[in-house]
């Protein structure tokens, strides 16, 4: 059952990626990318990372790709003509995925050799053991050692990790995004003022 879900969503992700490259219509390509994101989200959820999976759909499929499609439609782009490739680009397109494949194979060989990778619920014993790292009154501890239905509190765990271990990088990233946003506003305002002088 679980592995069936894995293959389904993996197939969805790969098919979406393949269609993204092969389809000629920009809107079709964008939708194929959405399909790929949904497949990826399914894989995350299968690994008990509900929060990451849902955010994958919310941010990428629900917001970013909508903006992509919005722009494509507004510009009314036509079908792409098949481009001629240089030998060097084709070679790069073959070599880089091969390197990645070798790396993945290496990881598989060294890490999970002989072990059946789980794609199901985490068992309760593991959760109880890992709960000991957290204070007893915290939401994470309560969720992990819940009497009737213990659950992996992945959202709380992500929040815990980000705000405890990586608080400073998070603040820096926030400042970076703010600067980028202000920069975009300033740039767009400047071009807006110039526009009347052109006409």
């Amino acid at each position, binding site marked *: 059952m679980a592995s069936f879900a894995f293959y389904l969503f993996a197939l969805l992700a790969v098919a979406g990626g393949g269609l993204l490259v092969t389809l000629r219509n920009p809107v079709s390509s964008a*939708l194929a990318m959405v399909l790929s994101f949904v497949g990826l989200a399914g894989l995350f959820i299968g690994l008990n990372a509900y929060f990451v999976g849902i955010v994958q*759909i919310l941010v990428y499929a629900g917001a970013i790709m909508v903006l992509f499609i919005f722009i494509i439609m507004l510009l009314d782009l036509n079908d792409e003509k098949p481009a001629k490739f240089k030998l060097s680009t084709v070679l790069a397109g073959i070599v880089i995925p091969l390197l990645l494949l070798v790396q993945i194979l290496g990881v598989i060989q060294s890490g999970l050799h002989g072990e059946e990778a789980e794609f199901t619920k985490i068992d309760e014993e593991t959760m109880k053991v890992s709960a000991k790292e957290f204070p007893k009154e915290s939401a994470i501890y309560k969720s992990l050692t819940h009497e*009737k239905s213990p659950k992996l509190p992945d*959202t709380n765990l992500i929040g815990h990790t980000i705000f405890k271990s990586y608080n400073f990088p998070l603040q820096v990233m926030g400042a970076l995004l703010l600067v980028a946003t202000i920069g975009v506003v300033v740039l767009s305002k400047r071009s807006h003022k110039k526009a009347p002088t052109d006409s």
Partner: protein
Amino acid sequence: MDTPFIIAAAIKIAVFIGITMSFVSICVIFERRFSAIIQDRVGPNRTMIPLSILGFKKDLALPIGGLTQPVADGLKFILKEDFTPSYVRKFFFWLAPVLVVVPALLTMAVIPFGSPMEFGDTIIPMAIADLNVGPLFIFAIASLSVYGITLAGWASNSKYPFFGGVRACAQMISYEIALGLSVIPVLMYFGGLNLGHIVEDQVTNGWLLLPLWNEGGFIIGSGYWGEPLVAQRLLLLIPIIISFVIFTTSIFAETNRMPFDLPECETELVGGYHTEYSSMKFALFFMGEYAAMVVGSALIVTLFLGGWSIGFGIDGILPTGAWWVSLIHIGVFLTKVTFFILFFVLVRWTVPRFRYDQLMNLGWIVFFEAALINVFLAALVIAYPSIGGLGVLIGFALLTIVTILLIKVAKGATQKPSATAV
């Protein structure tokens, strides 16, 4: 994967999707009758079985008033000619209605309809999927329905549907931000994303928006409200009410309901994004809108108005886990949802349509900022026990300065551009 789980899940899917679909058709009759009452008309108050077309003398009138009107409407949609214009982009034209309905129905999966049933050792939560990311799941899946409307506009390959699609796209993205930000104070208060737990919290501590009663009955004479934190809980009502207003309005915009139904604005765009659609494909858009409305009402009820909790302290008296209690709770939940749907209808026939720039200003300049400030306001109130009175005062002073500055900037942004600039 155990068999009872699968059986329970299958039954729940069938029943809850069935409830949603029947609510969609009930919505239609509500909408028509309620609008008729508002406009001092009669409305569809009788539906007849047309025996006359079979050669009988008279049509058969049913004694249940206009309640069968949705059936007649549905039949009409099915029997109409399904016409596909020759100039449309066929694949997307067919895909679009499906993309509107499916997300709207999928979001129903995480709504807790009633209190969990207990059969021996097994507890069956009355939500199809008892996820730990409930509200996020709804936002994520609901944000996919924008593809349906946008694609419908684009695939129709004609002018007015395209405008409708573009409008829908921009509007839904804008209001998703307000929607997501406005719900943060609520989630901070509950400290979790599981909708089932959120409702149970409200059963024991009072509804979020109406903390008038808890498990022990009304506030008066109940131990919980004698505690010193009662002032904090009452202060928290301010950010919660702001949240509620922003959230409800954003749901209106997300479902393309009346004050914000610019994408299908009849006076400007013929029929908007579904101009080229007919028959069952049009009906799917219709169903998607109403299903989104039902889910939106269900979500508002779950987050702010206690979900399936009866209130008045009755929940504490009833035994937990009995199947009949669950059924009562489901009934209470559906009653609340019905009231909210009536509220949706009332607003539709009361408030006139916004202009498009007003819509965008409201979303980006008013709601976005208000929701952001509201997050900090709620955080200050919630953090009171740990940072003390002085910390809250300093925070409140800073927040006031930021708010005043923001209002100044926002006023500058909403000023109408001078005639020469246009």
